[in-house]
């Protein structure tokens, strides 16, 4: 890798920095039609009629589509098929789409969309997740029988006994807010009817395979009749799974019906109105501790507002359950988790996936406990944290990999000079207006899908007769650099320069369905498949030339574009070996499949080997709080994460900083606000993501403990970096002000409740 890749190598960087990259909205198609979704003003209503006649007669309109036009299934969902392509029986939240106008231009489609009239019988809306569970509550889905989407639980040890052993019991309530992914590129899709009968889909999505499933079900055609083509995308963060797929399905449906390419490009306000969010949580948390700081018991109740449709609420809340005690060993645990339907905006996958909420709780609880016991937060963490061979709260023994909890904690303490700075914190008292605080938080995180479902991935290496290499893996380029990571892994395994490798434009018709590129699984799963493919290719190449090398095929080494015998005396170039393979009628074409090692889960007890491996992270932040205004200013942040193996160092650092920035927004200003079930923060002026001026200088400490179960050695990074800065900030705010903050976003009392909207700088 060294010399070839230089600093910050990416296969797509040149195109992106010159503006040459073609994202979906940049593609041009002959005879392209444009679509616009139609929403209603209702939050919860029984649909009577969608009157499309006026819109249908408007200038330039090709067709107005409603649920009636869907030839296949109008309902979809990865877990419960309750989501609609178009609302058919009810409107369940203000973002439900009742129709779609297709016209010659986007402006004409938008104009005509306002002419669609929705007749519906308004129903009382249930907007509070606790109320949704009360007997007699209005039901979001009548045929579901209740508003309970799912439950999870952990029953470990005996909590009553655990609390009896405790010298200190603390109990607190926490709340977190609804958060928007705010990918810079809104949802967009183009459906293209091809002459061969295939509907081709170009779009911005993280899960081409679920997109293909939804499109094929919607159209009533086989999977082979839909081809989802990899297209550069402007960010996902977990947010381009369900909604993005339905946007693709609508574009494909219109294209199929009208026989012309159709583009559905979302406006930002549509995107924020309709797309799913990070779940707002309410958590009641009770922790018992012995005088020596040992946590004796945890009892918690986790309530997640899933909004109007199921999406992946059962999976998100499952991770919250598994990680409900943070990275601490607790013998007695009683956890009840509930996912609930309401008429709020749908909640689903977002970077962290149920962990940011729980870490906000747990990492404050341990500090509350520490201060009550008169020990330092760091000491209390060390007393309880997982170590090599520890057993987690779900009964999993951590012995398959290096448990690096202490290593990341030590790294952050040393880098920040934490203990010395902690002593200098203001704790509510300072001479000037500024209060100073430092805080930290840490976590462990199960990697990839775990017991959520089937977890395997394919990669294909196809070496051409001239020795150039085509590579494709079943993971998707979301902007994170997946293609580059796959290329670097292949190059290193094959001992060739990365310039020899061209990552193929991916297609669902080419690479096997390898699932979704979420759960920080891209590098470990895709990289595992690439590594195994490369090893198989090496085996075949070595067999072809071992006669010339006069060694056993298994002994050949691949280095510097050559294949060498063990002593390095004889060599054959990579190109030559490929020539030999073609000459002897062997294709250098291989498929690698990485199957995640076995996991297990007992839903009744909440016990099992939840994930096949884990990662460990710690972050600290320094900040000041203005006594008069309540304004929080971040002064610096440091993170240490065990990434297994850093495949592309600059991109690894980018994941650190991007994750921390997003978490800073989560902590301090991001919130999807609604009034009576209608979102009011509909654009990037009112929904405020961090600007450069909101953020401090950040430092990334990369810890590498290659994982024995990961063929490439790499583990996970995208989400771990996003899940602990909010509690670190909350702890730092406490050390600055002397006051605990139990709700996100943190708004200090001296600050105005509703921060003024950022002025747009034009």
């Amino acid at each position: 890798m060294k010399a070839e890749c230089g600093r910050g190598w990416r296969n797509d960087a040149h195109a992106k920095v010159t503006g040459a990259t073609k994202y979906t909205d940049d593609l041009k198609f002959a005879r392209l039609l444009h679509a616009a979704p139609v929403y209603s003003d209702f939050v919860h209503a029984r649909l009577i009629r969608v009157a499309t006649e006026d819109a249908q007669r408007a200038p330039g309109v090709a067709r107005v589509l409603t649920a009636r036009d869907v030839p296949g299934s109008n309902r979809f969902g990865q877990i419960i098929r309750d989501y609609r392509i178009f609302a058919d029986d009810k409107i369940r939240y203000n973002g439900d789409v009742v129709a779609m106008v297709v016209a010659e231009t986007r402006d004409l489609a938008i104009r005509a969309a306002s002419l669609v009239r929705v007749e519906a019988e308004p129903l009382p809306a249930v907007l509070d997740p606790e109320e949704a569970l009360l007997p007699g509550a209005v039901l979001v889905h009548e045929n579901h029988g209740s508003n309970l989407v799912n439950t999870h639980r952990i029953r470990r040890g005996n909590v009553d006994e655990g609390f009896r052993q405790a010298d200190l019991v603390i109990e607190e309530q926490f709340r977190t807010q609804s958060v928007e992914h705010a990918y810079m590129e809104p949802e967009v899709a183009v459906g293209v009817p091809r002459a061969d009968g295939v509907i081709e889909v170009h779009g911005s999505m993280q899960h081409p395979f679920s997109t293909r499933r939804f499109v094929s079900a919607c159209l009533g055609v086989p999977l082979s009749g839909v081809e989802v083509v990899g297209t550069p995308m402007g960010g996902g963060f977990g947010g381009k799974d369900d909604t993005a797929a339905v946007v693709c399905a609508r574009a494909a449906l219109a294209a199929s019906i009208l026989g012309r390419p159709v583009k559905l490009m979302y406006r930002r306000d549509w995107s924020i109105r309709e797309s799913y969010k990070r779940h707002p949580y309410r958590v009641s948390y009770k922790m018992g501790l012995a005088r020596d700081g040992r946590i004796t018991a945890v009892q918690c109740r986790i309530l997640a507002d899933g909004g109007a449709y199921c999406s992946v609420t059962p999976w998100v809340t499952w991770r919250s359950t598994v990680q409900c005690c943070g990275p601490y060993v607790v013998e007695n645990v009683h956890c009840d988790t509930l996912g609930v339907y309401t008429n709020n905006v749908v909640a689903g996958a977002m970077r962290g996936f149920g962990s940011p909420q729980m870490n906000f709780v747990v990492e404050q609880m341990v500090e509350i406990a520490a201060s009550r016991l008169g020990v330092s937060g760091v000491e209390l963490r060390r007393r309880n944290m997982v170590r090599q061979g520890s057993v987690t709260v779900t009964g999993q023994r951590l012995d398959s990999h290096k448990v690096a909890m202490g290593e990341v904690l030590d790294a952050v303490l040393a880098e920040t000079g934490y203990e010395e700075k902690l002593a200098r914190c203001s704790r509510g008292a300072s001479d000037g207006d500024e209060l100073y605080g430092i805080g930290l938080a840490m976590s462990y995180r199960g990697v990839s899908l775990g017991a959520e479902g089937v977890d395997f991935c394919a990669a294909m290496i196809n070496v051409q007769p001239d020795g150039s290499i085509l590579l494709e893996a079943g993971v998707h380029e979301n902007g994170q650099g997946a293609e580059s990571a796959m290329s670097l892994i292949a190059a290193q395994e094959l001992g060739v320069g990365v310039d020899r490798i061209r990552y193929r434009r991916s297609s669902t018709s080419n690479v096997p369905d390898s699932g979704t590129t979420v759960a920080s699984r891209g590098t470990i799963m895709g990289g595992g498949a690439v590594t195994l493919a490369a090893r198989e290719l090496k085996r075949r190449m070595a067999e072809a030339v071992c006669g010339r090398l006069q060694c056993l095929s298994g002994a050949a080494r691949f280095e510097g574009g050559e294949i060498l015998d063990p002593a390095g005396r004889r060599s054959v170039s990579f190109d030559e070996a490929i020539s030999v393979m073609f000459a002897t009628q062997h294709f250098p074409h291989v498929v690698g499949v990485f199957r995640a090692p076995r996991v297990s889960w007992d839903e009744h007890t909440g016990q099992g080997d939840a994930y096949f491996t884990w990662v460990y992270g710690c972050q600290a932040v320094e900040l000041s709080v203005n006594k008069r205004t309540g304004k929080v200013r971040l002064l610096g942040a440091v993170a240490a994460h065990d990434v297994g193996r850093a495949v592309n160092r600059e991109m690894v650092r980018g994941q650190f900083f991007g994750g921390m920035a997003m978490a800073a927004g989560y902590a301090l200003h991001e919130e999807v606000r609604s009034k009576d079930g209608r979102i009011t923060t509909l654009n990037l002026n009112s929904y405020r993501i961090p600007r450069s001026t909101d953020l401090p200088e950040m430092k990334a400490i990369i810890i590498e403990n290659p994982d024995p179960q990961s063929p490439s050695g790499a583990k996970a990074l995208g989400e771990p970096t996003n899940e602990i800065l909010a509690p670190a900030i909350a702890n730092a705010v406490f050390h600055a002000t002397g006051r605990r903050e139990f709700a996100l976003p943190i708004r200090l009392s001296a600050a105005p409740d509703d921060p003024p909207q950022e002025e747009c700088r034009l």
Partner: protein
Amino acid sequence: MRLNVNGRDIEVSDAVGERRLITFLREDLDLTGAKNACDIGACGACTILVDDEPLKICIKRVKDVAGRRVLTIEGLAAPDGTLHPLQRAFVERGAIQCGFCTPGMVLVAHAFLLRQPDPTREQIRKAIGGNLCRCTGYQQIIDAIEEAAVHYRGAEAPAEPARA
């Protein structure tokens, strides 16, 4: 009316002058580096330079830049494809992830460095404060701009934007 885009003079009718500038650039000239992302001038993904000053064009019309010199991201690299030192720094410092904000970010940085070739990191932070990025946390973008600044100083002044 006439405008100059990436060194090329373009004559447009009054009717075209009334059109949205971003649509004109993206659809008529196929200069798709400027992105539609918020439509209200809040995010900066549509930023171009007009007479070396950044302009968020999603709410501008073609006539707003009549008679002026427009530089889009497509005009920054040399005609033979050689990256401008600022672009090279973005690549090498890992300042690019999804890339959707990158064209606007590079252009804002370019305009800033032309004015202030010896900036502090705090000044760089402020200069890009109107351009949103959701992927990078800005850290490596600031690194890249800081590293490229040397090319804007004194004798090492950068090649002027390409004039096709």
